[in-house]
């Protein structure tokens, strides 16, 4: 990782870029030429506080706090356009995923967003049933108050009456195996 030496020469804190480099293929981040292709094609960049190119530069500059508390990482829809088009082969989508994970673990996500609650509910659902329904979960989070009766919400009612909201998610037979697997996966770990 020749790029790291250059950064070190300039006295930049390297912890953060090293952390990001531990994800599969993550070390390629030092190859970024700041061409802006990722920002130009990102469908969400128009709403981001920092564009993908900017975030990559910030990671390389060691701006840990600023990156982790940015809104931008939560606006990434994992569409993979940037990853496909990056001329340097940087897996920007994977980096965005990694940033989400680090931000969640360190509690550094922007307060206005419901990311923590959404993530927790999702994980619980999988652990309990082995199945989930992402769209349904997201839909519940899109509602102002998820605990309101579903009849009070026109869209909720319309979904329900179209047979789109089952009351219970399906459960798999071997749900204990899912728990065992998740425990083991957490033990062997990774970022």
């Amino acid at each position, binding site marked *: 990782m020749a790029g790291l030496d250059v950064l070190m020469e300039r006295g930049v804190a390297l912890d953060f870029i090293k952390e990001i480099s531990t994800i599969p293929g993550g070390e390629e981040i030092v190859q970024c030429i700041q061409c802006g292709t990722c920002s130009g094609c990102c469908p969400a960049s128009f709403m981001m506080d920092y564009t993908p190119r900017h975030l990559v530069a910030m990671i390389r500059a060691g701006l840990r706090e600023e990156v982790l508390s940015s809104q931008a990482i939560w606006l990434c829809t994992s569409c993979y356009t940037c990853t496909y088009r990056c001329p340097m082969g940087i897996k920007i989508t994977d980096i965005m995923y990694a940033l989400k994970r680090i931000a*969640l673990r360190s509690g550094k996500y922007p307060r206005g967003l419901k990311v923590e609650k959404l993530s927790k509910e999702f994980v619980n659902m999988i652990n309990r049933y082995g199945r989930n329904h992402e769209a349904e979960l997201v839909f519940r989070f899109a509602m102002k108050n998820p605990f309101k009766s579903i009849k009070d919400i026109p869209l909720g009612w319309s979904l329900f009456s179209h047979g789109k909201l089952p009351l219970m998610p399906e459960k798999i037979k071997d749900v204990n195996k899912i728990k065992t697997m998740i425990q083991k996966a957490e033990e062997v770990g990774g970022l």
Partner: protein
Amino acid sequence: MMEYIYYPGCSLKATSKAYFESINTISAPLGVNFKELEDWNCCGASLYMGINEMNSFALCARNLALAEKEGKDMAIPCSGCYTMFRKTNQYLKDYPEIKEKIYKVLEEVGLSYNGNVKVRHLAEIIINDVGLEKISSLVKRRLEGLNVACYYGCLMVRPKGGVEDTENPKSLDRLVTALGANPVFFPAKVRCCGGTLVGLGEDIGLRMVRNLLICAKDNKADLMVVTCPLCHMNIDVYQPRVKKKFNLGFTMPILYFTQLMGIALGLDKNSLGFKSLIVPAEPVVSKYL
């Protein structure tokens, strides 16, 4: 009869009934048997990847291990699941440290995986294995005069590695042509629908949906076809909100490609899931039913 191991995914059992039903209805006439993978679990979707990568690979690997025992290609109707499985397969191959860890996880529940499952999108199977020639020979009601915007979305074509051209895919357009309809120019065909953004910040997600609808309308589409339940959720279910928020003066039915095929093949309209669409399709498709 061609056989595949079918991984419907969680959405098809809930919000995307229309997809599930129409796949069931068209598969026999097409000569395809989609055999559901027994006791499959959630792939983790994009959400789990943003929470814990190894757990996410583990969830996918269990399904792949179960599917491998069946010795057939895996048919996946949801583009999100499709990408999760493709990615897991790829990373197990490319990164020995991930492989080693995941093998340990599988061992813990008495499973093993040798990386041999071929992960395929159901649309691609229908287009390439059944083939357009056969499909057009089965058409009972050609969809003459119907203008269709073919929306591929993100994860059927990205990341690279599927069979489709990534920047300008044309397979759905060819399928629609084989049904007698007219695929319109639709430059937003691989532009993101917003994924799960509506859940986090409604405005941004709805804006992305609006852009797709306007692009389709400007190019004179009568309806849009999709290949993914999350795209469908965004563009169909949230369409009334988009319409209100941005004062759109039109609505556009959003059909799964399998529903459109069902119409053209002259199959029973009551088993094609039209009732569970939020934006009704009848005004546009009734003349072909």
